[in-house]
């Protein structure tokens, strides 16, 4: 997926390259490398994942002297990138918005210290939310962290901003955040890929403990310095409203940022390019030139603010009497600003009628674990082994185990383990405490599951830790894990197995079993659970590779499946197991051959043995 098809065959050998249709995330990756980054770090997360994937393949295809790594988590990614940037070299760290929460500690501290080489943090927001646990607005986080934030409205603008961000960062000696949203990350547009010529900068680390190792005293000095930087940055053109439509002398004005601005332009074009309206875009919602912004309420009689997701710009008007937006309810206070929402808001604001729309019902097909997915088998077996238990789970494909009742909680990365401990302490003195399992994916365990496992071990919690090991970060597009290796563009570094990592946390019993053997796996979980009485935390690794990899499917036995006359139509296979290939109609189960991958696991689920499997030749 790393090659980009040229839109036109003509490609100049020198000078400008032919435009290519790039995904927003691919455009950002090109911008990072063209901007001279020497170190690129990331932890995968939708909608940000393709940035690092693209940077990694560009770096290895073109043999660039750039270090690209999938870091173990976002905190580590930021720390590695930041440190490269205090040696005068350029770096980028990429994550999704909730990943920024994980990285918040170094980010906020780095803002005080500043950088000597450009540091770009790409943080992708997910209004909707489509693939996230919250709709949090990174621009608001940027205000809290005192870090400038750029808000692109398209892949093309994201590319331009990315390339300029490094010089901006060096000029003001501050980290910079680029905040694309899902609709920018996952939009494709014709862009001219810039030339990639890595910056040849020798590392130059000037020891300065009062900055790089500051104790609370010098921190106050750094805080004042940061405030002065921000006042300076407010004079940058990015900090002022930029007129993108209309004359600027109209009664009504709209201020917007990000992709919402693009929708506004489309709606206005559809309405015949209304000349009675001025639209301004804010490229950098923080820090803002508050006076330039507030002067809009003097120039226009009413101002509407359209932005995702929080009223970050709206809050900054000194006098909000003429301002409407999220704060007065003109713009809905949650959810994505889609073109129809923007059109409705504009209609309300201008009093003009928007084109008639029939709404598409929100009824969307719910996603489920793939047919043949080993996670389904593992969840089913855990339910069997620990009936009436509490199953604390986590973030990844396997969260979909909730469809079959195998996931009771999903809080944030790594919380399966700490929530299992929390449930243990809550129930330990109850009359009949339920069995407790923490069910977590391999990549998630490495990301944030290790400290809570140690914590549980040393604080007396008792539960069975089930690690779903499919040897990949499947949810976000199959990135490597520490156990698979290949975390960098040059394949340096060793691997670390799950067994080693879990044993290192002090866990004594670690069993490995293939969950396709449902009965055997359930036995292993039962035995491991029995030992929690004396050992505290015990672990079972459910090991079976992800079947989204075709080679995996080709390598495993494939069965031809059949439902026999014995089927009673009880529906247990659908309710409790939920393979998308199985449905029950007219009191009889049926298997859709176009969906079934022939894993044969369902044979072990039917109580009357009505599912038959025959090895396919």
């Amino acid at each position, binding site marked *: 997926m790393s090659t980009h*098809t040229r839109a036109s065959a003509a490609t100049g050998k020198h000078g400008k390259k032919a435009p290519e249709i790039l995904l927003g995330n691919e455009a950002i990756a090109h911008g990072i490398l063209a901007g001279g980054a020497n170190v690129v770090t990331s932890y995968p997360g939708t909608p940000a994942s393709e940035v690092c994937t693209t940077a990694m393949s560009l770096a290895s295809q073109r043999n660039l002297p750039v270090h690209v790594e999938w870091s173990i988590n976002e905190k580590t990614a930021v720390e590695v990138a930041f440190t490269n940037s205090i040696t005068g070299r350029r770096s980028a760290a990429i994550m999704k918005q909730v990943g920024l929460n994980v990285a918040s500690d170094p980010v906020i501290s780095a803002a005080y210290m500043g950088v000597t080489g450009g540091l770009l943090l790409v943080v992708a927001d997910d209004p909707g939310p*489509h693939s996230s646990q919250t709709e949090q607005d990174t621009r608001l986080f940027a205000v809290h962290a005192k870090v400038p934030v750029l808000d692109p409205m398209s892949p093309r603008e994201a590319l331009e901003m990315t390339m300029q961000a490094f010089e901006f960062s060096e000029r003001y000696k501050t980290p910079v955040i680029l905040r694309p949203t899902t609709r920018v990350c996952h939009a*494709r547009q*014709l862009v001219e890929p810039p030339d990639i010529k890595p910056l040849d900068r020798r590392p130059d680390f000037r020891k300065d403990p009062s900055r790089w190792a500051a104790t609370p005293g010098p921190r106050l000095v750094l805080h004042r310095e940061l405030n002065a930087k921000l006042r300076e940055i407010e004079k940058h053109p990015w900090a002022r409203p930029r007129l993108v439509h209309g004359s600027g002398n109209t009664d009504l004005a709209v201020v917007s940022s990000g992709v919402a601005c693009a929708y506004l332009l489309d709606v206005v074009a559809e309405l015949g390019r209304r000349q009675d309206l001025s639209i301004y875009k804010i490229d950098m919602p923080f820090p803002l030139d508050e006076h330039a912004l507030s002067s809009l309420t003097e120039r226009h009689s009413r101002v509407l603010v359209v932005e995702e997701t929080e009223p970050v710009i709206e809050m900054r008007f000194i006098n909000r009497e003429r301002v409407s937006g999220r704060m007065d309810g003109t713009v809905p206070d949650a959810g994505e600003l889609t*073109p129809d929402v923007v059109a409705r808001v504009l209609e309300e604001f201008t009093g003009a009628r928007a084109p008639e729309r029939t709404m598409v019902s929100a009824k969307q097909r719910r996603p489920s674990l793939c047919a043949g997915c080993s996670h389904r088998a593992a969840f089913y077996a855990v339910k069997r082994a620990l009936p009436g238990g509490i199953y604390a789970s986590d973030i990844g494909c396997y969260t979909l185990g909730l469809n079959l009742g195998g996931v009771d909680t999903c809080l944030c990365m790594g919380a399966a383990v700490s929530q299992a401990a929390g449930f243990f302490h809550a129930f330990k003195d109850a009359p009949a405490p339920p069995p407790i399992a923490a069910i977590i994916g391999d990549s998630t365990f490495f990301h944030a599951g290790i400290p809570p496992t140690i914590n549980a071990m040393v604080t007396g919690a008792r539960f069975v830790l089930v690690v779903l090991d499919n040897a990949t970060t499947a949810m976000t597009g199959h990135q490597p894990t520490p156990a698979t290796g290949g975390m960098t563009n040059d394949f340096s570094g060793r691997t670390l197995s799950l067994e080693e990592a879990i044993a290192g946390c002090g866990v004594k019993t670690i069993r490995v079993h293939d969950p396709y053997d449902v009965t055997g796996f359930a036995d292993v979980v039962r035995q491991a659970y029995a030992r929690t009485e004396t050992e505290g935390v015990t672990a079972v690794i459910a090991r079976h590779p992800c079947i989204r990899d075709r080679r995996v499917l080709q390598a495993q036995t494939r069965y031809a499946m059949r439902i026999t006359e014995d089927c009673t139509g009880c529906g247990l296979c659908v309710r409790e197991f939920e393979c998308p290939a199985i449905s029950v109609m007219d009191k009889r189960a049926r298997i859709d051959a176009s969906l079934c991958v022939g894993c044969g696991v369902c044979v072990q689920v039917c109580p009357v043995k009505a599912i038959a499997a025959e090895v396919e030749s």
Partner: protein
Amino acid sequence: MNPGTCSDRQIFMVGLGGQGILLLARALAVWAATTGREVITSETHGMAMRGGTVTASLKVGRYAGPLIPPGAADVLIGLDEQEALTHLPMLRQGGISVVNAATDTGTFSHVVDAAGVARSLGAPGSINMIMLGIAAQVLGIDRADMEKIVEELSPARAKRANLKALQAGFDCGAQ
């Protein structure tokens, strides 16, 4: 929508995760770009790709935003009949709908049993390429141009199968 004469167009695509709608959308986008017009698309990634509803939008012409508002699509391509029905309000009055369905109920302007064609090819996973061929035929896209694009976009091991399915699509679109 022939090159040179094509005006601003919005194409909405819908199917289920795993059906390969993104490759179809990309091929159409690359084709649109060869006409010398501006192109912007939107794709669904992430959780929904596990069997959930997956949509893609392609806007050709002077558009700034990647999403198509409801009732504004000129063309709807449906890889799944149920999903196409749910998303039919995306289509404007008089818009064209090209849908994979076993039987023609008169709801859509073009109905083809792409799943049936895919089965007869022995490649049940090739509905996306068959539908691309059909849609390309309906939209008046040159067959050789589209074949070249699919060849370039397909990973090496899927090239032959994708081309075969695309051609089958063109053939049934011609009927």
